[in-house]
């Protein structure tokens, strides 16, 4: 789960990391008042769960309360990179002497924590890694021993001497957040040295491990602050893994890998997926029914593709769930179904008996993807065919 900047900073503050004075605002008027409180000037920062705010106009320096009001108004009304914006962070203006970069993350390739610092901040770190790798220092910290002072000394060795102690304090705080709050990433870009000698986290990017939210209740409650698509909301309430995408083929499958592969096949067949939806392992008829209802409620869906390979999931249960949903809603688009694996025969028989006018059965995953793409786009799929390959699906 990615936190908003201000939520990340609140976690930072709780772990002793200095942050700028700031006020979260949900209206333009509030941004104006906040700027007055902060002395008449401020920085207005859009609160979204994506990066690239600086370049994308998501950070505005306001020289007056009116400018802050106008900036906040534009952000709240216009959204950011297609996302709805519900709040902005209004912060004090500071006199910055130097900018640095600091991050800690759980490195999946080693299974240990990785600390990274750079004496150049405020820039794209991946670009910096390519162009000036010598400015970056990295250090792995074994979870068995934790972060020690020698780690900190090595990390800050190239920092200006007057900033070193304070940067070390910040790094120790970041490690606390990483390990103590079940974060998988904490990133500060930039970390700043002010003209008055203080060191502050000017930004905060924090990602919390979804699997650990059960033991981080306070953080879990932040979920409700993220604006989401109503369809996405419904899916999430039902415990489904759903991600909205831009295409026109609604997709339901079991298992993340199989669903991703289905998305790829649909695109290769000349259409695009409207979503990712994983009903998970051992899905019940109810979760299948909800999935289908969720997909059918998305107005951009022109055809649905249900691709199930039963392992723990039973295809007869999936078929029953589909019929349950079709008893509640009347679909206006075709539903291509491919069932294989556990109890596939029974599942296919159930659908055959129901003889629903919208259901189109497909014998293989490949043909199902092709058929769904054709039905969604109204044209024959441009499938890259190989010699000897069986031609199109006739439905059955």
């Amino acid at each position: 789960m990615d936190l908003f900047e201000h939520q990340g900073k609140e976690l930072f503050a709780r772990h002793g990391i200095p942050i700028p004075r700031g006020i979260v605002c949900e209206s333009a008027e509030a941004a104006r008042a906040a700027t007055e409180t902060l002395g008449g000037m401020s920085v207005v920062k859009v609160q979204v769960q994506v990066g690239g705010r600086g370049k994308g106009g998501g950070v505005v320096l306001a020289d007056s309360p009116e400018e802050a009001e106008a900036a906040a108004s534009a952000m709240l009304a216009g959204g950011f990179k297609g996302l709805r914006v519900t709040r902005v962070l209004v912060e004090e203006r500071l006199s910055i002497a130097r900018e640095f970069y600091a991050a800690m993350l759980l490195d999946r390739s080693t299974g240990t924590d990785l600390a990274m610092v750079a004496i150049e901040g405020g820039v794209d770190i991946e670009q910096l890694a390519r162009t000036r790798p010598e400015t970056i220092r990295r250090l792995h910290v074994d979870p068995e021993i934790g972060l020690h002072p020698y780690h900190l000394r090595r990390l800050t060795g190239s920092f200006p001497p007057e900033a070193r102690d304070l940067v070390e304090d910040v790094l120790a705080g970041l490690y606390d957040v990483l390990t103590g709050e079940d974060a998988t990433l904490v990133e500060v870009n930039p970390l700043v040295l002010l003209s008055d000698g203080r060191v502050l986290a000017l930004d905060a990017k924090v990602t919390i491990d979804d699997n650990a939210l059960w033991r981080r209740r306070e953080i879990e409650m932040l979920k409700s602050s993220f604006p989401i698509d109503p369809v996405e909301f419904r899916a999430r309430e039902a415990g489904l893994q759903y991600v909205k995408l831009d295409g026109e083929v609604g997709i339901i499958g079991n298992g993340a890998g199989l669903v991703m592969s289905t998305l790829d096949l649909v695109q290769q067949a000349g259409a695009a997926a409207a979503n990712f939806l994983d009903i998970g392992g051992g899905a019940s008829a109810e979760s299948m029914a909800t999935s289908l209802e969720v997909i059918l409620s998305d107005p951009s869906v022109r055809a649905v593709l249900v691709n199930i390979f039963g392992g723990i999931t039973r295809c007869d249960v999936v078929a029953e769930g589909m019929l349950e949903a079709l008893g509640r809603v009347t679909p206006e688009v075709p539903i291509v179904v491919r069932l294989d694996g556990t109890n596939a025969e029974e599942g296919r028989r159930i659908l055959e008996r129901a003889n629903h006018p919208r259901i189109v059965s497909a014998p293989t995953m490949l043909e199902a993807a092709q058929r769904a793409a054709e039905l969604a786009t109204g044209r024959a799929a441009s499938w890259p065919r190989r010699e000897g390959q069986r031609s199109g699906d006739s439905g059955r």
Partner: protein
Amino acid sequence: MAILVDERTRVVVSGITGREGRFHALRNRAYGTQVVAGVTPGKAGQDVEGVPVFDTIADAVAETGANTSLIFVPARFATEAIYEAADSELPLVVCITEGIPVRDMARVASYLRGKPSTLIGPNCPGVISPGRSNVGIIPGEICAPGRVGLVSRSGTLTYQIVHELTQRGIGQSTCVGMGGDPVHGIGFIEALELFEQDPETGLVVMIGEIGGDDEERAATFIRDHVSKPVVGYIAGFTAPPGKRMGHAGAIITGSSGTAQAKAEALETAGVKVGRTPTEVAELVEASLP
């Protein structure tokens, strides 16, 4: 021979009295696997359809000679079961459980370093050597004995590809589901190493997906150390960056971990990469020595 599991595999199932544990333990036994014991604290002395239940893995090992742990306990208790199995020095530990916090897994990975136990998973479908032993939740009926070794980060996508192989009459030596979590036990490299040494494996299929750099590192390993043909598949070409696709492994961050980059790395190392599961089966058919 196969790898990791065979006729000599003797399984102790942690969480055997739970719904999933019971169902799959019995399913594995029906396949022909020697399921010799179960563990559920407080239920020692009971049995599950004839499989004796013990309080601890140590007791189960002492009484039954179990040599493989299969874990179905809920995420909050699963790491304890892994530690317990490792402390009983079981050579193989298969953890099916999904949803374990990654930080807990980092500690497990650190603890297992230098220990004799090999971990498969967590959040994985397990491992099967068709016709010999099935330890986990891979449907045995879609597999057939043969010469293709398979290792995968995904569950149902593995079934899809195994199914396509079997339907063409191509059997498998062993199928390893390594799981989709960011920190996990056995990976592509370890599995490739075992398949390379296994005389019964003639070709290896590796199934990857977006996120992390496991496939890229595997590509380097294949280039330097694998003489057998390798066929690859990567899921997630159309996944948008920054969006989590279902399980913890499947997320692209920034410019790294894309399906394109992975497929290219594999192709550079001489791996034939299929664009669809069907094409993977076609490539295997054409390349199997």
